[in-house]
C-alpha cells in the first residue's frame, strides 16, 4: 500500500473539474450568507457548470491520473462532461420553476452542484471507499433536493421515503463491500481483481457482489429495488426528478462499469444470472406498470425502470461493445428524459405540476411548439428511428446479439412493442380534440431560459439519432482498459 504519494500541481489541474464543483458552491455559500440573490446564484451556477465543462475538455487528452482514491481518465471525464451539460440544462430549467414555487431558492443550486459532484466522483472512483463516499454525497444532496419545496406534503413524503429506503440500501451495499473486504483485504478494484484471480469466486465474494448489486440496484431503480421510483418522481419537483432520472442513475451506471471492468466481476455465471433476471424483470415490470398510468411523471418513472433494464442488457454483454452501448444509451436517454421533464416543468404552475395526462389533452392547440417537442421525446423513448432512442436501442441490441443474449433480446423486442403503446398514448392525447382540452394555461412569456434548454435538447435528440458516430467515437476512445 504505497499509494500515499503527494498530490502535485499537475494532479490538481487534472482534478480541476471536481475541485471546481467543490469550491464554487463554497464561495456561493458565503455569498448567500451575506446577501441572497436568485439571479446571481443562478448565473454563478451556470458559470460553474460551464467552467467544469471547459476543464473537462481541456483535460480530456491528458494521460490518466491515478491517485489514491480516484482515477481521472477519459471515461470519468466523459461522464463528468455529460453530467455538467445535464447540470447546465437542469439549472436553466430550474430558474423559472423555482421562481414560481419556492421561497428560498439559492440553496437548491448548491445542492445541485454537490449532487453532480457526487455522481462525477462515483464514476472516477477506483475504490470502494470513494465509491461509497461519493454515493453518499449524491444521496444526501438528493434527500434535500427531493424535499426542497418543504411546504408541500408530497415533497416531504417523497423525501422521507427516499431517505429511509436509500439509507437502508446503503447499509446493504456497505455490508456487501464489507464481505468483499473481509475476503480480499483491499478496497481498490484493481487489487480485488487480482485477488479474485487467485481465490476465485468464493461465497464471500459472490454474496458481497450480490449485496453490492442490490445497493446499486436501488440507485438505478431496477426491479426488485425499484419501489421508490414512481412515488419519488411524482413527489419531487420536476427539475429534481429530471436530475434523479439522469445524473443520479448515470453516476451509478458509470461507477458500476468501472467496478465490474476492473474487477472482472462478470466472469461468474451466477452474477451474470442475477443481472439477467434483474434486467428481464425490470423491462417487464417497468413497462407493465407504465401501461395504464395516467400520471405522466409516474409513467416516466416506470418507463425509466424499463430503460434501465435495456441498459443492463448492454451491461451484461460487457466485452462485446456493451459498455459503449450502455454509455451511449445513457447519453441518449439523458437527452430524452431531460426533454420530458423540461416540458413538464415549463408547463407547471404554482398551483400544481403538469403531471396528469389529461392536462396534455389537445396540448397541440395550446402550445404547438411544446407539443412538438413532447412528440419528439415520446418517439425517442419509443425508439423510433432518427431519434436518439432508436440508435441507443440499436447499439444495445447489437451488443446483445454479439454476446448471444437471445432471451433478453426477445424480451427487449416484446417490451419495445408494449412501450410504443403507452408512449403513443401520450402523443395521441396531445393531438386530440381541440374542444375538450383544459383552459389555456400560462407559461413563461417570451423566450424563457427553459425554452432555450428545450431547443438544445431537441437538437441533441435528433443529432444523436442522425449522426451518432460523433459521440460514439468519443465513447470508444474513453473505454476503460
Amino acid at each position: 500500500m504505497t499509494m500515499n504519494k503527494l498530490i502535485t500541481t499537475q494532479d490538481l489541474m487534472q482534478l480541476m473539474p471536481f475541485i471546481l464543483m467543490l469550491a464554487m458552491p463554497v464561495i456561493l455559500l458565503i455569498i448567500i450568507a451575506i446577501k441572497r440573490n436568485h439571479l446571481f446564484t443562478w448565473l454563478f451556477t451556470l458559470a460553474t457548470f460551464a467552467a467544469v465543462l471547459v476543464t473537462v475538455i481541456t483535460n480530456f487528452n491528458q494521460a490518466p491520473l491515478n491517485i489514491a482514491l480516484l482515477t481521472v481518465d477519459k471515461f470519468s471525464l466523459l461522464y463528468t462532461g455529460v453530467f455538467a451539460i445535464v447540470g447546465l440544462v437542469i439549472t436553466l430549467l430550474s430558474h423559472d420553476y423555482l421562481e414560481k414555487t419556492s421561497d428560498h431558492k439559492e440553496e437548491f443550486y448548491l445542492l445541485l452542484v454537490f449532487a453532480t459532484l457526487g455522481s462525477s466522483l462515483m464514476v472516477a472512483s477506483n475504490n470502494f471507499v470513494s465509491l461509497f463516499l461519493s454515493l453518499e454525497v449524491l444521496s444526501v444532496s438528493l434527500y434535500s433536493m427531493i424535499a426542497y419545496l418543504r411546504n408541500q406534503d408530497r415533497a416531504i413524503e417523497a423525501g422521507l421515503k427516499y431517505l429511509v429506503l436509500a439509507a437502508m440500501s446503503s447499509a446493504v451495499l456497505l455490508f456487501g463491500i464489507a464481505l468483499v473486504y473481509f475476503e480480499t483485504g483491499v478496497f481498490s478494484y484493481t487489487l480485488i481483481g487480482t485477488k479474485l484471480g487467485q481465490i476465485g469466486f468464493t461465497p464471500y465474494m459472490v454474496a458481497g457482489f450480490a449485496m453490492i448489486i442490490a445497493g446499486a440496484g436501488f440507485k438505478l431503480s431496477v426491479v426488485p429495488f425499484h419501489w421508490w421510483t414512481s412515488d419519488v418522481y411524482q413527489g419531487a419537483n420536476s427539475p429534481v426528478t429530471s436530475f434523479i432520472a439522469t445524473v443520479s442513475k448515470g453516476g451509478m451506471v458509470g461507477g458500476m462499469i468501472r467496478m465490474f471492468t476492473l474487477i472482472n466481476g462478470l466472469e461468474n455465471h451466477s452474477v451474470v444470472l442475477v443481472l439477467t433476471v434483474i434486467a428481464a424483470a425490470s423491462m417487464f415490470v417497468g413497462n407493465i406498470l407504465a401501461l395504464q398510468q395516467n400520471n405522466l411523471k409516474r409513467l416516466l418513472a416506470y418507463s425509466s425502470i424499463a430503460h434501465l433494464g435495456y441498459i443492463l442488457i448492454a451491461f451484461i454483454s460487457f466485452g462485446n461493445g456493451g459498455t459503449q452501448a450502455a454509455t451511449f444509451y445513457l447519453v441518449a436517454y439523458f437527452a430524452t428524459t431531460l426533454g420530458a421533464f423540461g416540458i413538464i416543468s415549463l408547463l407547471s404552475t404554482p398551483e400544481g405540476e403538469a403531471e396528469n395526462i389529461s392536462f396534455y389533452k389537445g396540448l397541440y392547440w395550446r402550445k404547438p411548439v411544446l407539443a412538438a417537442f413532447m412528440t419528439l421525446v415520446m418517439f425517442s423513448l419509443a425508439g423510433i428511428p432518427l431519434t436518439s432512442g432508436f440508435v441507443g436501442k440499436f447499439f444495445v441490441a447489437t451488443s446483445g446479439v454479439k454476446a448471444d443474449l437471445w432471451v433478453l433480446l426477445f424480451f427487449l423486442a416484446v417490451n419495445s412493442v408494449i412501450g410504443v403503446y403507452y408512449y403513443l398514448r401520450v402523443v395521441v392525447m396531445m393531438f386530440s380534440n381541440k374542444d375538450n382540452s383544459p383552459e389555456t394555461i400560462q407559461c413563461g412569456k417570451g423566450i424563457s431560459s427553459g425554452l432555450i434548454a428545450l431547443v438544445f435538447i431537441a437538437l441533441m435528440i435528433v443529432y444523436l439519432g442522425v449522426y451518432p458516430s460523433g459521440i460514439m467515437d468519443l465513447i470508444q476512445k474513453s473505454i476503460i482498459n
Partner: protein
Amino acid sequence: MIDYLWLVPALPFLGFLILTFFGKKLSKNAISFVGAGSVGLAALLTIIIGIQFLLSPPEGNFFNQKLWTWMSVGGMSPSIAFHLDALSLIFIFVITFVGFLIHVYSTEYMLEDEGFARFLSFMNLFVGSMLVLILADNLALMYLGWEGVGLCSFLLIGFWYKEPANAAAARKAFIVTRVGDTAMALGLFLLIVNFNTLNIQEILHTAPSQWTAGNSTAVWIAFLLLGGAVGKSAQLPLQTWLPDAMAGPSPVSALIHAATMVTAGVYLIARNHVLFELAPSAMSAVAIIGAATLLMAGFAAIVQNDIKRVLAYSTISQIGYMFLALGVGAWSAGVFHFMIHAFFKALLFLGAGAVIHALHHEQNMFKMGGLRKELPIVFWTFLAGSAALSALPLISAGFYSKDAILWYAWSSDKGSLILWAAAFFGAFVTSIYTFRMVFLTFWGKMKTHVHIHLGNAMQVPLIVLAVLSILGGFIETPHSLGHITLFSGFLNPVLPEVQLNHGGEFTEIILQIVTALTGFLGIFLAWHFWYKKPAMVYNFKQTSLGTGLYKLWLSGWAFDWVYDTLFVKPFIKLSQINKDDIVDQLNIGLAGLVNWLHSLVKKTQNGNIRWYATGIAIGLVITLTIVLFL
C-alpha cells in the same frame, strides 16, 4: 445527374421540414407549391436519373452513393448510403411519380381542411421515408425507412384524430404491423450475426456460398423476413389492419395503403430473393399466403358497402397476387404487377375520393348511383381503372401483369394447378366485385346530390393515371401478343428469370382465353345482380346461408373473431374483465392480458413505505439465493 441521387429522398424531407416549421405562416398556395413541388422535383430527378441509367448503365448495373457513416460499433458500420439498381429504380419511379400525382390531387382535395399544411408535411415525410426504405444499401437504414413509413401511416390514418375511431384504427395499424416488424427485426439480427455485416448486397453475395438450399438458418431468416412483409403488406394472417386504415383521407389510402407502403413487403422479398431461393419452404409459404389472401380478400370485397373498404380488400387481394408471383419465383412478374397496380389502384382510390368529395363524405355505395353523367371524367377514368383491376384483355395494363402471374403460377417449376386455380378464381371474383362497385356507383338512380365541382388539380392526375392504367402494360407482353420483354429485361441483372417447368405456348393461349372469358362473365354477373335484378341478391341475403356468408365476408372472414376466440376468449375466462365488442379483439385481447398484469402489478405500488422496504428485502434475499445456490 446520377450523382444527385441523394436529392431524391432529400427533397421530400426538405419539404417536410419547411411545412412543419413554417406551415402556419405560409399561404395555402405556398403550402401546395412546397408540398407537391418537392415531390414533383424528386419525380423529375428520378426520371432524368432513370433515363441516364437506361442509356448508359453504370458499371455492374448498379450505382452506390455513400453519404456518411451513420454509426459504427464493434466492426459494424452502417452508413447513410443509397443503392440504385433496376429494382430500386422502378420502385422510386413509382413512388415519386405516383406520389407527385397524388400530392397534386391532395392540394385540391384537402385544401379546405384546417390541417392542410400538416397533411402535406406528413405526406412529404412519408415519401421521403419510403424512398429511404427503397434506396437503403444496408439493413439498418432500410429498417429506419421501414419504421418511418409505419409512423407516417400511423399519423395519416389518424389524421382526422378527432374521431376516436380513427385514432383507434391508427393505433391498430401501428400495433399489428409492429408484430410483423418484431419478426423482421429478429430476422435482421440473425442476418447480422451470420454475416457480420449490414450491407444488403454483401449479404446477398455471400449467402449462396455460405448456405445450401434448405439450410435451417436461411429458412428461419426467410420466414422472419416474411413475417415483416406479411405485416406491412397486409397479408394473411396480419391483414386485419388495412380495411380499418381507410379511416385516413383518400389520398392517404391511394398513396400509402395502395400504391407504395403496403407493397414494401413485396420489395423486401424481391430485394432478398437470394435468401428466399435458399429457403424453398419459405418460398412455398409466400406463394400459399399469396394465393390464400387473394381469394379471402376477394370474397370479402364482394359484400362491402363502403367503397373504400372494397378497394382496401381489393388491395389486399392484389398484393396477394404479387406474393403469389414472388412465391413461384416469377420475380419480375410480381414487380411488374406492383407497378401496374400502383397506377390503377391509386387511380381508383383517387376516383373514389373524388366521388366521396363530391357527395360530401358519403362512402356507402348503396347511397350513390347515377354518377355517370354528373362526374364524367371521374366515371371514365374510374372505368379505366376498373378495367385494369379486373384485367380486361388487351386494352388494360392489368391484363398483361395479371396474366403473367397466372401463367407463371401454372408453368413455373414452383407453380402448380392449385395455385393457378386459386389465382384464376380470384380473377373471376375480382371482376365481380370491381364491376359491382362500378354499377352501384355510376349507374342506376342518383340518390345523393353532387355538391362540388372538381377542379383541374383533381382531374388531371386521374387522367394521367388512367392513361397509364391502359397503356402501361405494353412494355411487357406474353408470347401470344408480340412477346415484348422490356420490363423483365430491364430487371434481369437484379432478379433472375423464372424457371419454367411445364406448359407451352399453346397452353398459354388457352389459359389466356379462359381467363379473359371468365373476366367478362364476372362483369356480366355483376351487371345482372347489382344492376338488372338487385332483388336476387337481396333475397339470397335473406336466406340463412346468404346471411351467414354475408356476415362472414363483411367482417373479412371474421378474422377479428378468430383472433378473438384463439387469443382473447381463453383469457377472458381467466380474468373475466374483458367485456368489449367484436372489433379489435386482437388488440384488446393482447392488451387485455398486459392490462390485467398491469392491474396486478399496480397493487404493489401502494405508497406504503414499509411495503417498499419489504420489497427491497425480498429482492435482496432472492438475489443472494440466486448467487449462492444457483
